[in-house]
């Protein structure tokens, strides 16, 4: 079962200067806030660093002199610093995150809005999950870099430099001795931590494996039990469970080696300072207070170094994310309004294809010179084998794609010149797979006309023969449908989506295999509804039920991207061509099934 898949996407990417600068531009609207935040961050760091200085003052000047009033001054200053730190830390957290979350908000909005503009070609063959991750995780990674990453690292560098500065001012000799451990700490932070990170990556992979196995076992538990594979599943689970456990213990071991190395390094650093410091104090070169302050400062070396090395990693992760996010933002929508599009308030419904060529992928032609004319109010049926290009033809009418060559016109105007909103607002499509959004049944129907009144909604549902079963629900139109409409049968979903199409009162109605995956009973309801609706609209019907097709004003037979026959049912039957053959095959099958 599901296992041993990698995480799917590489987590890290080389540094890309162009992307980095582009990322920085997201900070721009918040420049003022960024500056204020930096000032606060530095102020807080300074207050923190001032503590040991005060103690040094106390030890060296106040205590030997027994200066009571100075002691109080130091006490009060320390209290003041504490209050400054408290307020500063509050402001720092709030401001930093406000910037970060605002950027996340902006980026998500920008991405989502951009995706709304992209053409269908973008979505073809891109799993929804992949696009979703861009808006969720990748955006988070980018923010990580900008706020906690970038701003934090500035804070770290400032803190580290200030600490070193204070130490040098206090005693440059002792400071130089203290700095001996800095390179070692850097080494630990960069090299050893990398090693630690690697071992945790393995843990993540093993955990993903285990979870995938679990998830699949739970959703497939009925199958497992029906095929009496419980024992085998338990064994397999034991295996993934153990693998994960072992990898985690192993990673913990590696991590555990890491902490002591920091601790021992710091201890050695302390000892150097103690040794040289004690010697200097006895020689009168430095004071006891300075020694105490030094010990305090050395303890603060590690944090900024650790988080600086983290920053490098954050950058690499963010680079991979920025590549993907910018990749989407830089995808131009193919289908755009021309500079002065024609608005058509009232489409009559004349549709013409003039020698249309089309391909999804280069050099794999799907339509090869399709021409036909449809008068307003006509019903056109499109038949032909799978992959002949039926759906492609109807996808070109609302201009989901642009033709490669030729022209599609509506009321004698090229669809490319028509304002897209105008065009699509006057059309409706019912697909084979009805899509239901989470929300109430009412919301789902209203989707066809967002400002529809309650009456209009119910009328549409009645026409679609959906009113009956909706009323039978306990909450009627207020029934909440779960994600993807899981509480409704396919048939019910299709009737609701048909009501949605009816509500939008389209001039052109397109039914793409709308009755293909529903049961016989619903199909009758739907068929009945369709007949009511076709009246007075131009409609295109792709179906395999003969009864629907037979009534069409005209039938287009498509094969291999071309119209091979055209006419009404009788004409085509008399032609004894492809349509006749398709019918004959179906009839033979039917006879066979009936047993005659």
């Amino acid at each position: 079962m599901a296992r041993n898949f990698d995480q799917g996407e590489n987590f890290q990417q080389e540094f890309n200067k162009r992307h980095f600068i582009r990322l920085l531009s997201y900070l721009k609207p918040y420049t003022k806030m960024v500056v204020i935040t930096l000032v606060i961050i530095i102020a807080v760091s300074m207050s923190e660093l001032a503590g040991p200085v005060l103690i040094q003052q106390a030890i060296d000047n106040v205590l030997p002199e027994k200066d009571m009033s100075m002691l109080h001054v130091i006490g009060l200053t320390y209290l003041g610093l504490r209050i400054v730190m408290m307020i500063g830390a509050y402001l720092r957290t709030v401001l930093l995150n406000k910037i970060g979350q605002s950027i996340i908000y902006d980026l998500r909005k920008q991405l989502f809005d951009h995706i709304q503009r992209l053409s269908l070609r973008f979505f073809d063959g891109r799993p929804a999950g992949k696009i979703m991750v861009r808006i969720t995780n990748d955006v988070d990674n980018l923010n990580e870099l900008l706020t906690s990453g970038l701003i934090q690292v500035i804070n770290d560098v400032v803190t580290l430099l200030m600490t070193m500065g204070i130490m040098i001012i206090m005693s440059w000799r002792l400071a130089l001795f203290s700095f001996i451990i800095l390179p070692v700490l850097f080494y630990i932070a960069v090299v050893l931590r990398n090693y630690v990170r690697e071992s945790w990556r393995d843990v993540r992979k093993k955990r993903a494996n285990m979870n995938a196995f679990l998830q699949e076992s739970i959703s497939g538990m009925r199958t497992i039990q029906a095929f009496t594979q419980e024992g085998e599943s338990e064994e397999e689970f034991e295996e993934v469970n153990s693998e994960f456990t072992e990898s985690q213990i192993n990673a913990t071991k590696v991590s555990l080696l890491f902490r002591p190395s920091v601790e021992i390094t710091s201890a050695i650093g302390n000892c150097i300072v103690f040794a040289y410091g004690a010697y200097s104090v006895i020689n009168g070169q430095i004071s006891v207070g300075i020694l105490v302050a030094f010990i305090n400062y050395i303890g603060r070396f590690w944090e900024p170094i650790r988080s600086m090395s983290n920053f490098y990693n954050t950058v690499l992760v963010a680079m991979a994310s920025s590549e993907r996010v910018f990749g989407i933002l830089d995808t131009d929508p193919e289908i755009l309004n021309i500079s002065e599009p024609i608005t058509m308030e009232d489409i009559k419904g004349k549709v013409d294809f003039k020698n249309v060529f089309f391909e999804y992928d280069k050099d794999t032609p799907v339509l090869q010179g399709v021409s036909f004319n449809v008068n307003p109010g006509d019903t056109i049926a499109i038949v032909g084998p799978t992959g002949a290009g039926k759906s492609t033809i109807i996808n070109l009418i609302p201009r989901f794609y642009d033709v490669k060559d030729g022209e599609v016109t509506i009321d004698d105007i090229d669809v490319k010149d028509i304002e897209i909103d105008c065009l699509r607002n006057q059309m409706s499509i019912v697909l084979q797979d009805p899509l239901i959004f989470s929300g109430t049944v009412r919301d789902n129907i209203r989707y066809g006309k967002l400002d529809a009144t309650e009456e209009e909604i119910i009328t549409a549902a009645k026409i679609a023969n959906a009113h009956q079963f909706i009323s039978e629900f306990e909450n009627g139109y207020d029934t909440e449908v779960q994600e993807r409409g899981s509480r409704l049968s396919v048939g019910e979903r299709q009737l609701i989506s048909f009501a949605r199409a009816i509500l939008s009162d389209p001039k052109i109605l397109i039914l793409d295999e709308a009755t293909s995956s529903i049961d016989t009973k619903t199909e009758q309801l739907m068929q009945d509804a369709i007949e009511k609706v076709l009246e007075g609209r131009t409609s295109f019907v792709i179906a395999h039920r003969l009864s629907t097709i037979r009534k069409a004003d005209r039938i287009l037979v498509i094969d291999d991207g071309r119209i091979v026959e055209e006419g009404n049912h009788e004409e085509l039957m008399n032609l004894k061509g492809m349509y006749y053959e398709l019918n004959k095959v179906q009839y033979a099958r039917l006879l066979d099934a009936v047993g005659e």
Partner: protein
Amino acid sequence: MKTIKRIFSYYRPYLMLLFSAFVSLTILTVLGLMRPKLIRVLIDDVIYESQINLLPWIIAALIGIAVGRGIFRFVQGYLSERIAMGAIKDIRKSIFSHLVKLPYSYYDKARTGELMSRISSDVHSLKHLLADGLLELYDAIFTFSFVLVVLLRINWQLTLLALATLPFLFLTTVKFAYKIRPAYMQIREQMAVMTNSIQENITGVRVVKAFNTQEHEKEKFDKENLSYFTKMMNAITIRATYMPLMQFFGGLSALAVVWFGGYQVILDNITVGELAEFYSYIFSLIWPIRRMAFLVNFFERSVAAGNRIFEVLDTEIELKDSDQAVSVERIKGNIEFCNVTFSYGENDVLKDFSLRIDAGHNIGIIGETGSGKSSFISLISRFYDCQSGEIKIDDTDIKDIKLEDLRRDIGIVHQDIFLFSDTIKNNIAFGNTEATDEQIISAAKIAQAHDFIMEMEKGYDTAIGERGIGLSGGQKQRIAIARALVRNPSILVLDDATSSVDMETEHQIQKDMESVMKNRTTIVIAHRIASVKNTDYIYVLDHGEIIEQGTHQELLNNNGYYKQTFDEQYKEKDMFEAFLDAGGAE
């Protein structure tokens, strides 16, 4: 308390290791607490008294402490990880073993996502409890008591002063822990809502474009996006308020020590070294307080997580082998229902239902959604127990047959097919792990799956499912049929198994199955007449009752529901005949 006890009972196999972990932790802590003493000696004796000869000893001691701590930290960390991971591995194992035994009725109600979160995140929070919870609590109490005694001996007034702010620290921390949890929960929930809205938008892109509702979608998303922002900022504000406050209270203790301690030094009550020692110890007084405040909340959460896990583990397995269950070598395939009544909840799905199918017969069942067709076959495999009546296989009540033996010889193709993310070959062999390649291929051929499988680049080794290629509904059904055939079952059940297969292929499958159906009881459930008309005997079900039965021809003559359905499904026949008569026929 009961839950905590039960959680800790998982320590049992590791008691020796646990004891060692406690010992290591104690040594680790004591070593750490010796450092302030050394600092006092350094300041008071080495520096002020100029006893430079003590310096090498102090340095040696400090490095020794660091090395010793390193060793014991490793030992303690490794042991507690080993124990906790071992314990939760056991927990996960027992959950999984329990899950595979829980009956269908459990999965009718359970939601995968929720179960998953119990097994992954709830078990994970137990891991923290087992690895760190107890040890940390011990460490916090131990450190606090140890330091308190040491400090009281140095200067009791100073100690009391340092303790003064700690109750505030404790209360603030407790309050924080209780406030921040729900705030984070809200963020997670909002994230789920937002993710869902993105997913719907993307999967529904055709509908969005067709109805031209991009603006509406943008508004909808903006609402969720903004709400996420607000909830996030809410949590951050809580953190931003409490964290500095907690630090402030801690800092206040240190301040009190420096201030009042300095005063004491001036009065010559304590030495500078003692003050430095005191000052270093203060943090060992503060962190246990903060730790304990978080632990209060942490223990509570672990108990909640533990309860959720134990709820799964304690779900009774109502459907299992009875004590007198017997093994059956091979089921022959006689099926008998005697006055069976069955319901999932309130309404009876089967009412006083009786029928008998002889081994080797080929039965069709037809009826609308909700007529009880699928329940009927679920009962044969004993996925559910009926409320009253008796179901017999080969004249034995199925409750007296070992479940494994019963199900081993039944092959089902379910209505909604579940295939695993694995290769096609392993999916077909799922029913029979000992199947040879020939058996797999021959089953696939009968199911009309061989040809499309061979057209794939990797043939039978093609991975399908989440990480592999997607199959059409018809292809999935054909693989599921092959999977059932490979089991070589005595009873073969096809529950609407060819609904997504086109008519021609269905016909071919029926033809090829004839040979394998010979020696088996076969039950075909369908709503298409074409699927059942070739069976030996047909039952028509409606609202849990048999309303008509007979052969295809008998039922047609009967002029009842079956005939109506037949006419409806074959009305095109007349249409065809009409125009073929009109000159189309050759």
